Structure formats: C-alpha cells, structure tokens
C-alpha cells in the first residue's frame, strides 16, 4: 500500500465517519419520534439527538482518575477506527482490509476501553454493568460467528465488501436473506443483543442498576459515550445490511435497508420486556445457537445457499 492509497483511504474513512455520525444521529431521533407515535405521543424533534450530544459536550465533566478519562478516549477511538473500515454503498476506505474478523477484533478494543473506563469510575453498579455487557457479548458472539463462518465457507471469501458484491449478482434472490433464512433470523436476534435493545437490555437497565456502565458519567464524557453509541449502532446495523441484505449500491437502497432494520429492531424492543442476564445466556445458548449450527450444517453438507 503506497502513500497515495493511505491518504485517499484515510480521507474516505473520515467521510464515512462524518456520514455515519450525521446519518445515525438523525435516524435515532426519527426512531424516537416513531416510537413516540406508537405510544400515542407527539415525540421529540427529529434532531433531538444532536441537541443532546452537543449539550453534553458543552457541559463540564468531572473525572474519576486517569483510567476513567483515558478509557473513554480509547473506547471512542476504537469504535471510530472500526467505523472507518465499514464498507458503505460502494465506498471502502481500505480495500482488502475489510475482513469480517477486523470488526470482531477492533470492536473489542472499543468495548474494552469502555469496560476499563467504567470500572475506573469506582462505582459498583458500573462494575456489574460491565460484567453483564461482557457476559452478554459471550452470549451473542458465538451464534453470530457460527452463521458468519458458514457464510464465509459458502461464498469463499471473508471480505465484507466482496460478500456484499456476491449478493448483488441476481437481485433479491441472491441475498443471504433468501439464501440463508435461518441464519438471517439468528443474525437479527444477535443484532438485538449487540444493540442492547429491550429483551437484551440487561447491561443498561436504568431502573435496576442505574444505567450500568454509564452510572458515573456526566457532561463531556457522557457526550463522548453517546457519540460512541451512535457509531457502534452504525457499525452493527451496516454489518447486518452488508452481510444479510446484500449491501447497497445506491444511497436510496442503503437508506431503505438501514432504516428498515433499525426501526424494526427498535419496535421489537418496545414490545418486549427485559431478560435477566442468566436468561439472556440461556436463551442465546439454546435457540439461536441451535439454529446457527443447523444453518451451518445445511451450508456445509447440503450446499444450499452457496
């Protein structure tokens, strides 16, 4: 990779970051409004999330030691770095480096930064929240990776942009949604777990452990955490769109797919209650993992969906 490629790649990555921020923050506000309408409320303005984030960034922030402050930066940096690698439509910042496993590893940097910072705040509820978040991660990673590995085996490539390109060959019929319907269901359940939406909201649980890892955050740090949250939603939903819904060629296609997935996840979340952490693990290790293994066996031995 020469200097020119690195420069253009970084530039594309930055553009993707700005797009991710503006797009996901707007969509979060719109989703709050949709949810409000479902509850017969008027709901906030669609740019409410921007107001919240900028308000938090203008507030003062107290620090609880350098581990706390550094952990926030590390988490935000890790997640932003991961977001730069995400293929959006036909743009990929670093072609050839958008391997599925890049996301798994880089995403962990962000999560660990967050865990470090939250535990550094010294509040026992933050410790409980982090423990639950990591436990839940163990729960959803296994079925998700089984499905993704089956997909990698079937298509013969691990690059996300190539996986998306394979699915664009023959319209909807070649999407993994049609080729691997069981795997898509598992992927969506795991997506709910990744997003921390309602049935798997164990690590936030505002009424139970006072918003878990975020319990001691306020002001600027909380603002950075909200930014991080928007970026991580962008990564997770884009990954789902790229892996199961055939990516996107045009802006319109991307927007329709992305909005569909995120709004559906939010509405599912509004209809359900919250699992306990042991129920989450028991649930993930029963149905999603069984379905994921079934899907993998179908792909490997029957060759369907390849």
């Amino acid at each position, binding site marked *: 990779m020469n200097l020119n490629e690195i420069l253009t790649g970084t530039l594309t990555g930055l553009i993707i970051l700005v797009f991710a921020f503006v797009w996901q923050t707007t969509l979060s506000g719109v989703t*709050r409004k949709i949810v*409000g309408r479902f*509850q*017969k*409320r*008027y*709901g*906030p*303005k669609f740019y*409410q999330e921007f*107001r*919240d984030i*900028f*308000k938090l960034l*203008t*507030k*003062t*922030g*107290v620090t609880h030691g350098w581990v706390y402050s550094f952990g926030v930066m590390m988490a935000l940096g890790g997640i932003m770095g991961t977001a730069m690698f995400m293929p959006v439509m036909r743009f990929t910042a670093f072609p050839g480096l958008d391997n599925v496993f890049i996301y798994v590893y880089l995403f962990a940097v962000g999560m660990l930064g967050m865990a470090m910072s939250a535990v550094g705040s010294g509040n026992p509820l933050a410790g409980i929240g982090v423990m639950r978040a990591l436990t839940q991660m163990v729960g959803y990673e296994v079925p998700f990776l089984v499905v993704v590995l089956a997909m990698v085996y079937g298509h013969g490539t691990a690059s996300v942009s190539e996986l998306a390109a394979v699915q664009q060959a023959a319209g909807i019929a070649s999407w993994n949604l049609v080729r691997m319907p069981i795997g898509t269901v598992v992927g969506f359940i795991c997506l709910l777990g990744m997003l921390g939406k309602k049935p798997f909201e164990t690590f936030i649980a*505002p*009424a139970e452990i*006072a*918003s878990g890892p*975020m*319990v*001691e*955050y*306020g*002001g600027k740090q*909380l603002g950075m955490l909200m930014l991080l949250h928007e970026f991580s939603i962008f990564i997770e939903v884009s990954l789902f769109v790229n892996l199961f819904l055939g990516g996107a060629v045009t802006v319109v296609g991307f927007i329709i797919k992305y909005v569909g997935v995120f709004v559906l996840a939010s509405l599912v979340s509004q209809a359900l209650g919250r699992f306990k952490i042991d129920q989450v693990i028991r649930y993930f290790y029963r149905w999603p993992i069984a379905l994921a293994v079934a899907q993998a066996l179908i792909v490997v031995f029957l060759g369907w969906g390849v």
Partner: protein
Amino acid sequence: MGEGIIEKDKKLKEGWEGISRFFRANSLWMLMYCTGCCAIELPQAMTSRYDMERLGMGPMATPRQADVLLVTGYLSVKTLRRVIYAYEQMSTPKYLVAFGPCPINGGIYYDAYAVINRLDQYLPVDVYIAGCMPKPEAVMNGFQDLIDGIKNKTADGWKRYRDNYEWYRKNQIESLGELRIKDEFHE
C-alpha cells in the same frame, strides 16, 4: 492591542455561551427526587397526555447524567442531606425545580420538627411550581418557564450557588448540624 484581544475573547465566549444555551434549553434531562406527593403528577406530564419528551425532556438514572433536579414535595432534614449530595454531584450547568408549597414556606408541614421550611436557604431554586399538588398543566408550564429562563439567562442558580457557596453552606450547617453523617448506614 491587549484590550482588543480581551474584547475578542469576550465576544467569542459570549457566542459560545449563546450556542450552549440553545442546546441546553431544549435538552433537559431530569433527576427525579421523589420526596413527597407531588411526584405523582410527573407520570401524567411524561406520558401521552402531556408528553414531556416533545420539549426534549426525559428521565435519567443518576445525578451525574442529569441537568435538572426535581424536588417533588416536602423535604425532611434527612432527605435534604441527600438532595444536597445529589445536587453537588451534578455537573454544571444544573437547574433545580421545586414542586408545591412545601419547599416555598413549609406548606402544611410548617410546624413539623423534621421538615424544613424554605428550600432556597440551602440550595438555589430556579423555578417554583405552585399548587398542592400542581396539576400537570402547571408542571408543563413550569418547565416552559425554566426553558425560557435558560434562554434569557435568568435561570442561573448554579452560578449563585458557586458565588455564594459560604452562605449556603452556613445555612445548611445551621439547620442540619453535621452535613456528612457517620453511622452504621454510611460506612
């Protein structure tokens, strides 16, 4: 030359403050300290009938995250201590809204040995909402007043608390005795 820079700096600061006030006024996160009966009026104000979220307001879990502290009802000596802890934990700028007559002059508890009479002696109050209990309309009106106050700089309780800290602390000590309690529940 030097004065020019100071002037410019001042203007820049004022501009930044103006932008900040715009965001703060429309994104108020509440910490509900449900000390008394007025707390029962908050669910109506929050849910579909009056829908507080359209003003950008929402409940928050901890003092650190919140912008507005709602003192809903009478404050006993014991709860006043915890309100002071919570208020001092919040990150500035912070606002305090007092519900009902009890924080104003003691209300029906004016002669109680364990209930304080005036909240503004101990913490700066930005908005009072009158009524025993205030109707949800009055609650929404009070929040609108707070938003207007933030926009035209009259809701500056956190600055008053910072500037007159000794006076507030003196009043707190006079009524509460020791501010930090040392017993088996606070180890």
